[in-house]
């Protein structure tokens, strides 16, 4: 889904045909890959030597620039993982559009798309993709099919590297330990393969798997350079994760010439991630911070020790009351039965020459100890039914109740608010991942569904708010409503209580209970963003 369709927004940039003296087929590849293996070095030199000797090698150079003002990269909210959050004192953004001061564009993958006839053997030394500071390093990378990719976790948290491969085998592997390494090799060319982390939704990297080594990634200078090209006709393509692709054709006639191709992307034309279709961007809206709700949100939780967690919903006390009623009843029975047991064991221990008391039972006591438990248990059923009906069988009738949709996916909670128009699935909807915001003192009705995304299956989850005493399984194919009303403000958590796969234990959401004014301000802020 990452590879952009060809020929999108083809505004042909003029082909600069400045022919310059090129470096002899340089150690470019070798230097860049910093191959540690002597054998590999030797072989590459030999190969390049052969090329330069027989056919020579041309170089392609160029620059990628961006016109117009790009929209700001999205801010990353790392609240879901405190380990990640601790890495950054300041705001972090997704490194998707990085523009240099001279208007050149970073992180563009420039590669020879067609025309390469000689494909040397793939290097044995791996290309490294590091998961560090809860980001992938590098963000854009390339390698030759058959060359290993070494995936490293440098963080002390779980990463789950998920390669959304289309032409190679897709994989999805948990890497819970700092220093853990994983080696993967791809045998089919694929431009570009997206890597994402199933634990940290903001993490992304793009890998270009090519049949050769003729590629380059633009950096601070916005320049690229591909060398070692034999004479022939080539198509070069520049790929950017937001702006899509552009390609040019060029010809190499002399063995040692240097050709120049420049690419120019426009900030107003972006490629849709799913379809690759070019779309116009809107003008970014200013974000306004209107209200400081931090006192309400930072109200400390009550310490509860090794017992039930704090009880903060309108019905949680009723559930707890029922719990204590059962605890008392069962507690009394427990001590009664165990006490009688121990008493009998001591009192009636073996006495030599004695016999037991010969009785086959007593109908009257049998009836008594059948009826008493039956009465108690039926009474408990009636007591339970009242609370059960309140929590699960009725939804709040209040016209001003807050309506929210939560779509559970493996392994995150997608939160959706209807926005100002009060209707879902309209452009003003507010969407969040793992962040549920609600006001205090107002009933909230949540519609739970389980969704599948490109690579995730719709499975059963369970929406669990421990402090609210609410739990409801999220069933694929069903939309289930639950409701709750908070009695206090503060920050709490959403847990997934039904095993839903590898990342189940990290399927943690965050619940912010605002003051009423704070919630309105938050909604306004979200609507503006």
């Amino acid at each position: 889904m990452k590879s952009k369709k060809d020929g999108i927004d083809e505004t042909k940039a003029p082909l600069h045909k400045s022919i310059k003296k090129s470096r002899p087929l340089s150690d470019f590849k070798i230097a860049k890959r910093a191959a540690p293996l002597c054998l590999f070095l030797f072989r590459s030199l030999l190969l390049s030597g052969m090329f330069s000797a027989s056919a020579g090698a041309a170089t392609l150079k160029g620059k990628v620039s961006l016109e117009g003002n790009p929209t700001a990269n999205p801010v990353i909210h790392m609240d879901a993982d405190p380990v990640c959050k601790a890495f950054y004192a300041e705001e972090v953004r997704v490194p998707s559009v990085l523009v240099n001061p001279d208007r050149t564009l970073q992180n563009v993958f420039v590669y020879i798309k067609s025309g390469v006839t000689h494909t040397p053997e793939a290097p044995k030394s791996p290309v490294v993709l590091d998961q560090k500071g809860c980001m992938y390093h590098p963000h854009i990378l390339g390698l030759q099919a058959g060359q290993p990719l070494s995936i490293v976790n440098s963080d002390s948290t779980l990463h789950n590297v998920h390669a959304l491969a289309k032409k190679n085998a897709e994989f999805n592997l948990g890497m819970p330990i700092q220093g853990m390494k994983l080696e993967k090799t791809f045998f089919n060319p694929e431009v570009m393969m997206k890597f994402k982390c199933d634990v940290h939704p903001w993490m992304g990297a793009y890998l270009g798997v090519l049949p050769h080594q003729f590629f380059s990634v633009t950096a601070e200078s916005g320049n690229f350079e591909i060398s070692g090209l034999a004479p022939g006709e080539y198509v070069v393509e520049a790929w950017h994760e937001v702006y899509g692709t552009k390609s040019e054709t060029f010809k190499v006639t002399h063995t040692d010439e240097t050709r120049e191709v420049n690419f120019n992307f426009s900030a107003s034309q972006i490629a849709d991630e799913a379809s690759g279709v070019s779309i116009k961007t809107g003008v970014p809206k200013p974000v306004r911070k209107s209200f400081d709700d931090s006192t309400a949100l930072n109200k400390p939780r009550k310490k509860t020790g090794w017992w039930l967690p704090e009880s903060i919903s309108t019905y949680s006390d009723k559930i707890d009351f029922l719990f204590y009623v059962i605890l008392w009843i069962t507690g009394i029975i427990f001590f009664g039965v165990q006490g009688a047991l121990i008493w009998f064991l001591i009192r009636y221990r073996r006495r030599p020459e004695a016999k037991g008391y010969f009785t086959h039972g007593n109908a009257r006591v049998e009836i008594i100890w059948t009826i008493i438990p039956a009465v108690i248990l039926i009474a408990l059923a009636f007591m339970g039914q009242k609370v059960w009906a309140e929590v699960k069988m009725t939804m709040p009738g209040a016209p001003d109740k807050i309506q929210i949709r939560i779509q559970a996916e493996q392994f995150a909670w997608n939160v959706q608010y209807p926005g100002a128009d009060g209707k879902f699935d309209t452009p003003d909807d507010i969407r969040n991942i793992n962040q549920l915001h609600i006001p205090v003192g107002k009933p909230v009705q949540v519609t739970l569904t389980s969704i599948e995304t490109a690579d995730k299956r719709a499975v059963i989850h369970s929406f669990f708010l421990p402090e609210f005493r609410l739990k409801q399984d999220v069933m694929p194919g069903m939309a289930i409503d639950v409701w709750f009303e908070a009695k206090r403000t503060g920050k709490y958590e959403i847990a997934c209580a039904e095993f839903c796969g590898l990342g189940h234990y990290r399927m943690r959401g965050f619940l912010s209970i605002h003051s009423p004014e704070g919630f309105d301000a938050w909604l306004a802020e979200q609507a503006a963003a």
Partner: protein
Amino acid sequence: MPTLAHPEKRLSFWKKYIFSTDHKIIGIQFLMTSLVMFLLGGLLALLLRWQLAFPGKPVPFIGNLFPTSMMAGGIILPEFYDSLFTMHASLMIFFAIIPILVGAFGNFLIPLQIGAPDMAFPRLNMASYWLVPPAAVIILAGFFLEGGAAATGWTAYPPLSEFEPIGQNCWLISVILIGTSSILGAVNYITTILNMRAPGMTLFRMPLPVWALFITAIISLLATPVLASALFLLLLDRTIGTHFFLPQGGGHALLWQHMFWFYSHPAVYIMILPGMGIVSEVISVHSRKPIFGYHSMIYAIMAIAGLGFIVWGHHMFQSGMNPTVGTSFMISTLVIAVPSAIKTFNWLGTLWRGNIRYTPAMLNAIAFVSMFVIGGLSGIFMASTPVDIFIHDTYFIVAHIHYVLFGGSMFAVFAGIYYWYPKMFGRMMNKPLGILHFILTFIAFNGTFFPMHILGLGGMMRRIYDTTQYAHIAHFQPINVFITINAFVLGMGQIPFILNFFGSLLWGKKADRNPWEANTLEWSTTSPPPHGNFETVPQVYRGPYEYSSPESKQDWLPQDKPAGHGA
């Protein structure tokens, strides 16, 4: 009508001990196989307890022996952790507790206690055992396949189980085989009990283990086919692309839960009723008293079996099933506690004014009563739908099931082994080692599982690889460490049992016919009984629990002793 025991034929070793049709050998085969699986399941539990107490710390000593698909540098990976809890439960339920209680004790006891020379269908019986080893190999093979062993919990809820790697297929095929074994066993037990009782052995003169196994077999026969169908449908979904449990093809994931729990709730009774029978027997013998309320014990077993078929929905209160249906399941579930209470009071009534002898068997039987009370009472919390909203899918459930299946079933298994070992192998087990095993197990069991109630009340979810990250449960970590230490003691505590079990085979004191001075028929033949069980067809004159009867000078009166002889 059973005829005289056939004379001992000369059989080859293979015929006699491996492909035997003798119910006693088959019983012992079930016993040995399930004990091995019990130890294996226990080891898996210790690995996952390590991860829960010390998340991300390498497993000491053995950690580096595991391949990188399971552990990295000795650290248990989440994939492997998921396989661990799935396989722990699957092995314990399908390969340890059910085969021990039903397969081992059912086979060994039923013909002996009803005075029959063997089972009604000996070859069917052999087939029922010989489905177990291949099933065990298949389910364990998952560990060595790409993607590891099944990792969706022993409940294997679809849709998740539809998409997991090949190990899930192994799990499904294996459990289908085990289910088939249960069905074959059940047919055999029912037929044997109805048709092959010795003269005079009326239904209401049958010992309680036979009654319990009889009702259990009926439950098995009615419920297991439903599980087998569910497993088969899931296998079809996974292999040929049907959509029985997938909403996108018109199927429904809740369908699995209904079918699965329609079997698996009665399965809890499959795992506890035979234990209740064993415990009733052991308590009556050791109290030297008739069982208190013999008839009400039987009616209670029947009531549990009947009600057991209409309570399965209590596993699904929070599943999205209509909450009104939840109400009816709440009522039936609370009502099923009544027969359990009757049984408990009857055991107390049996102990009352007894002349109690303490042996390892009796200690384990008493522990059963005491622990079953806890497991039964904690069930009331879950039966109450509103309280269940909070404790569903937490460690409270884990605590409850272990009080029922370990505190209940396993203590009954130990009681049964200590009690019938002399009859099975003709030798006595060592008493001090037995008492040591009991004390270690009892204390460490409670140390392991009681604190799990507290974790559950704190809201700690089940099946979580690392519980330390949630704010509402992070502070419970010391309890997790405490539990893990106890779990290791519990594991170590089984060493005296293993030594005792195998050591006594070689060095145990030779057992005479009736070491416990018990009444039931198995004690009137030799230890171990010959092929065909009885020298002559026993004639039954009275019920099984006439201890301390004024008719007899001694405090026991065997079922086959003609009246007037002992006075």
